[in-house]
């Protein structure tokens, strides 16, 4: 199958299966809405597409990396709910690479079917950029671990069935060496989830407290004290998917949609040469960035290990472009972007007699929340440190 065939097939599948109101909700770009995510993941699962990127033996569709990018781009542009990334791209690969047969059999099918969605419990109040200094303790007692401590910034903890965590199992030696990778059922007694409201007014983040939480030792992934190594290796595997190219394309297309409806002094904004120049400038940036991504993917496939710190380059440029495009979206809206379109009022419904223009809800919320792109997944300062360190090593 050619890439173009796949693109057409994905489009046709979406056209046939994605309910219009769900697509409309997806395009507003508020926080993930669990009922939609579950519905859509199940649909994809029936088709065998809910685990793109996974090996065929674990239920993946067997796509190449470029094909997976095509799939994700089409889904994003059409407003499909996003498959929960914690299960799909973070814990899933860890489980099929390092997990026991039992763990694979138990968890992988349920990730594919969205019966389980997952939350990532890595960061702590005093372990952000310096993640390895995490303190949440897991002490072995018989065939259980007893977990005590606190996680923070735990996305979707309030709506997830399971958590994958980095916990401290040893205080000896280097701090990286005493960390283990543990899977915890969020229903286990002793877990308290407290919401954190973010600057866009939405709820995705949480604090999670663990008090004498008893976890079967069978939920340890791989070997004790090896968690840091697993987490690091697999985060690197995801290098090309933090490039955000699908999001850039979605933003560019929405900017143009808005500019076709918005007026500037009585003429459609899309005809304003000053505005078009600003769109063009960012579209050029996106072209260069996408070409970088394609280059990296091709080099990887050919087994050429580039000397450049490519994952960090893709992350830095990709996230910063999302933020710049977000600002341009607000600019396109003009005054119509100034009202606060609260998620609770505008996600499932639209109030009577709303201000602004129809495409406006969600854009400023997304803009504000996307400030976090340069903070999570390794802050952009830390990424630049990595780039420089790697280049100077010579």
């Amino acid at each position, binding site marked *: 199958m050619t890439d173009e065939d796949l693109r057409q097939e994905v489009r046709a599948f979406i056209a046939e299966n994605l309910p219009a109101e769900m697509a409309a909700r997806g395009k507003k770009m508020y926080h993930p809405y669990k009922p939609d995510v579950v519905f859509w993941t199940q649909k994809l699962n029936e088709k065998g597409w809910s685990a793109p990127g996974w090996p065929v033996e674990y239920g993946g569709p067997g796509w190449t990396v470029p094909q997976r990018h095509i799939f994700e781009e089409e889904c994003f542009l059409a407003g499909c709910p996003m498959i929960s990334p914690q299960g799909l791209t973070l814990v899933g690969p860890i489980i099929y690479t390092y997990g026991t047969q039992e763990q694979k059999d138990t968890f992988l099918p349920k990730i594919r079917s969205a019966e389980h969605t997952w939350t990532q419990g890595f960061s702590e109040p005093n372990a952000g950029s310096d993640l390895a200094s995490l303190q949440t303790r897991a002490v072995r007692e018989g065939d259980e671990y007893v977990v005590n401590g606190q996680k923070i910034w735990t996305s979707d903890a309030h709506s997830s069935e399971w958590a994958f965590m980095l916990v401290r199992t040893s205080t000896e030696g280097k701090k990286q060496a005493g960390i283990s990778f543990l899977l915890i059922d969020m229903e286990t007694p002793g877990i308290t989830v407290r919401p954190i409201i*973010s600057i866009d007014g939405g709820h995705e983040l949480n604090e999670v407290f663990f008090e004498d939480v008893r976890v079967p030792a069978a939920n340890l992934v791989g070997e004790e004290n090896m968690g840091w190594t697993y987490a690091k290796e697999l985060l690197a595997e995801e290098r090309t998917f933090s490039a955000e190219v699908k999001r850039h394309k979605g933003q560019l297309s929405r900017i143009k949609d808005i500019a076709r409806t918005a007026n500037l002094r009585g003429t459609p904004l899309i005809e304003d040469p*000053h505005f078009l120049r600003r769109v063009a400038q960012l579209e050029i940036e996106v072209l260069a960035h996408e070409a970088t991504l394609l280059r990296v993917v091709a080099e990887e496939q050919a087994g050429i290990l580039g000397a450049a710190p490519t994952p960090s380059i893709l992350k830095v440029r990709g996230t910063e472009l999302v*933020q710049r495009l977000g600002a341009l979206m607000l600019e396109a809206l003009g005054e119509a972007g100034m009202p*606060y379109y609260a998620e609770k009022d505008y996600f499932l419904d639209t109030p009577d007699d709303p201000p602004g223009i129809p495409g406006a809800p969600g854009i400023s919320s997304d803009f504000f929340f996307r*400030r976090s792109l340069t903070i999570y997944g390794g802050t952009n300062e830390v990424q630049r440190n990595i780039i420089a360190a790697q280049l100077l090593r010579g």
Partner: protein
Amino acid sequence: MRVLPNEDQVMFRDAARRWVEQEADADASIADQWAKFAELGWLMIGLPEDVGGLGGDAFDAAIIAEELGRGLVKAPFVGVAVTAAQLLLAFAPDRLEALMAGEEKPLLAHVEMGAGGDPSWVETQAVKDGEGWRLTGTKTAVIGAPLADSFLVSARTEDGIGLFEVSADSAKLREYLLIDMRPAGDLVLEGTEAKLLAADALGEITRAVDFELVVESAEAVGVMQTAFDMTRDYLNTRQQYGKLIGQFQALQHRLADMFIELEQARSIVLRGLDALLRDEADRSAIAAATRVKVAQAGHFVGAQGIQLHGGIGMTDEFPVGHHFRQLIAFEMAHGGASRQVERYAEMMDV
């Protein structure tokens, strides 16, 4: 260019800072705060003595605005005590007494969707109806609108752009919060009754808008200053990798860049105030320039304020994000900063 405040201005600034730091309670009603503004003389500070004001000018008003900006005070000080007050000064000076006493809160309702910061873009229509007038059109993003008791509304007549007064009771207001949680609204005029204040008002409206562009910029400098202060303090508190994050050179340089932007913004506000006071041909161009520079600096300082705080900066509980939201609302108003660059290009000497 006036740079240094005089003794009286320093006193007002210190009093305003004290009030913002110690008394301005985010939960207090704006009505209560307004009474305080009147009592402290802030509503008359920028008005001449012959109409009962304190004899100050935009420079004085900017001092108060900056302090209110530091504390994200939501009451529409600039809208009433500067923009509307300047228009009443031109067309109905007898009305200022009630404004200065805090009894009346008029607001200018002028901007229409798609005006792109052009003060002459008015599509609202006025037609004569007996002794009075009737207006039809929509005015948008009127900051503080739910608190106003009357609106000064621009509308087109056969003879040009006039200024009218519409009482809040007779007009339909579509209320909402702005992205920074300030109350605002659209004034929806559907043959709404109005009183004519001036038949040929575009010149004075443009002047009042220039005042707003500049004095709101002073307010935004206050918003930025607090975001900067919080960030500097955080670099001196937060530890990662066993040291203060302020020891990382990348963050030191960012903080320095934030400070440079803040200082540029503070300076151009003085330049903008100077243009208002001289009231010469370049007034509107310099007002636009002030707006642009402050908006761009504000976007950078606010965004980096969040960035340097890490996850904490993303929370609604921690204030740096609130400052960013207000700076973005500031950037978007009046057509947005990019449109103000274009306005400047249209007006500058070539």
